[in-house]
Every structure is written in C-alpha cells, then in structure tokens.
C-alpha cells in the first residue's frame, strides 16, 4: 500500500517525521497528498494536485500546528508543512 493510500485510510492525521501534507475537501472527507520535500516525484505530484484544484477555484491555506493562524497560499511551496484546500466560498 502506498504512503498516500495508507494516509487516506486513517482518520487521525499522524505524519511521519519530515513528511508534508496537502489535504483537500471532498465528499469523502479530506483526501491527502503527502510528500517529502527531497523527493522530486512526490513534490511534483503534490504540485499538480495543488494546481488542478486551485484552477477549479479551491482556496489553499497554510495551517500550522496547534491552531496557530494560517494564511492563504496562492502558489505551491513544497517547504510548507501542511496545506488545506477548501472549495471556493459562496454566499448561501
């Protein structure tokens, strides 16, 4: 089982040391893309997902540990530890 599919099986997010994660919302809860910044293939896969989703209007936020305030991210940066992507906000 790949790292990505393994990560998607668990509900609690416990990342291996040094791993970075992109979580995007879907009808299955969040899906996760995990990368090691030193692994070019993994970084490329994460960047593709980021670009695909943001082109669809998803809003990406950097989220730090312990509830520390994050901020909007418009370009993929593999050095960021954790990103959450949510569909664009619309008035309800």
């Amino acid at each position, binding site marked *: 089982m790949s790292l990505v599919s393994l990560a998607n099986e668990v509900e609690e997010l416990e990342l291996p040391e040094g791993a970075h994660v992109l979580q995007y919302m879907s009808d299955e809860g969040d899906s996760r893309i995990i990368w090691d910044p030193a692994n070019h293939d993994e970084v490329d896969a994460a960047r593709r997902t980021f670009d695909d989703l943001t082109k669809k209007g998803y809003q990406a936020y950097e989220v730090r540990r312990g509830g520390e305030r994050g901020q909007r991210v418009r370009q993929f940066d593999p050095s960021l530890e954790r990103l959450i992507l949510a569909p664009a*906000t619309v008035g309800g």
Partner: protein
Amino acid sequence: MPTITQYYDAYGRLYEYQNGSTYITQNSTTTQYWNVLDQSHRQTGGTSRVANSPYVIEDWRAWNTSTCTTITQNTYYPVLETWQEWCTYGTQGNSIVQTNVFPAREPTPEELAAREAARAKAAKAKVRARSLLDSVLTLEQRQFMERHGYIPVVGSKGRRYHIRTTGGASGNVALVDDKEAVLGRFCAHPTSAHGSIPTEDHFVAQLLHLQDDEDDFLHKANLVEGKNPVRRALLSVA
C-alpha cells in the same frame, strides 16, 4: 431519467420537483430540495446554487425552522424523515402544499442498498471531517465548541466571530462585539460545484477564510440577520 415537473402556485411561485423522491420547501428567493432516496439536500435560487452534502439534515432543519414559508410534499414515499423533520421543526404558520401524492410503496432492494451505501459513505466522511476540524482548532476553541456549540474566531482584521457548530452551516457565522452580543449573522459556504462536503468541512473553510481575509468573507456572504448598513459600515472601515 427522473421526471422533473414544474408548476406555478396561486401566488405565482414556481415549484419544481422530481416525481416520487423529493420534498421541497420554499420562500420567496430560494428553494430547498430534499431527496429522500439518497438523502441529499440542495438549494436553488437566492444568490447561489448549492448542492449540499448528502447528510446535512441540520441545514435543512435550520432553514425550515428559520426562513421557510411553504413545504411541498410530493409523495407518501415510505422514507418519511423529511416530513417528520418538517412536522417537528417547521416554522409555525408555514403553509403546506401537497401535490402529486403517490400510493405508499416499499423501497426496492436497489433503492435500499443505494441509501445504505450513501449513509455509510457519509458517516465515514463525517468522521474524517470532524478529525480535520479538531486538528485546526486550539484547545480553547475545541472546548468552546464542545461546551457551547460554537467556535470563537478572531478574524484577520481583529473582529470577533462565532461559528455555530450545531444546527448546520446555514447562516451560522455570527459577528459579535466585545460583550458577545450578535451584530449580524452571515451565510457563506464552500461551493459544492465539485462535490458535496461534510458539514464539519464547512466549519473548517469558514474558520480559515475568516482568519485569512474576513473582509472577503463578508463580501461573499449573505447577511441573514442584522442590517446591511452593519456590513457596509464594517467593510468601509476595512
């Protein structure tokens, strides 16, 4: 393909429904649908078109309780959760329009299996979404959510909000003053154009958006309680 039927009532309001599977409630600007087969809920009209997640009965309840004026019951289909919801929570004085009443029948095995699969998927997604929500909250925010049913948030400009986490994600963002008095309630969600997401994910998106750019959130949100001058005043000082 389902049959979609439209008609106008005596007041000139347009109704649209899918035969045999959908309940509708409606006010002057939006129409809410509840699909009793797959438990999905969606909204048309108003300023947005939202296909909400298939397990947001809380949203349906909140909307029916606060703003709905009419319910249309299409059928006596055996799945009666929606009708029971309406009878329990519907706003007093709401009118009831009953159309197209089909004889009761048992759901087919395929329909039952589809409902069960949808519910199982929704339940799993909800657990993941709750985990995601917990992971972005401070300890204090989690305690507020569990004890008081809302998440306190300080926006990017320092204004204070409560994201209500009981009763769904409809009109659940309140702007409050220093004494916790509500200045206005706002309704904005992640769009479901790319698929429905659990209610808890709505809370996460609202929280992150407010923390990053509360003015943008207010610009996009509909004011559901309070006065528009409140919002204009807020935005003008931004």
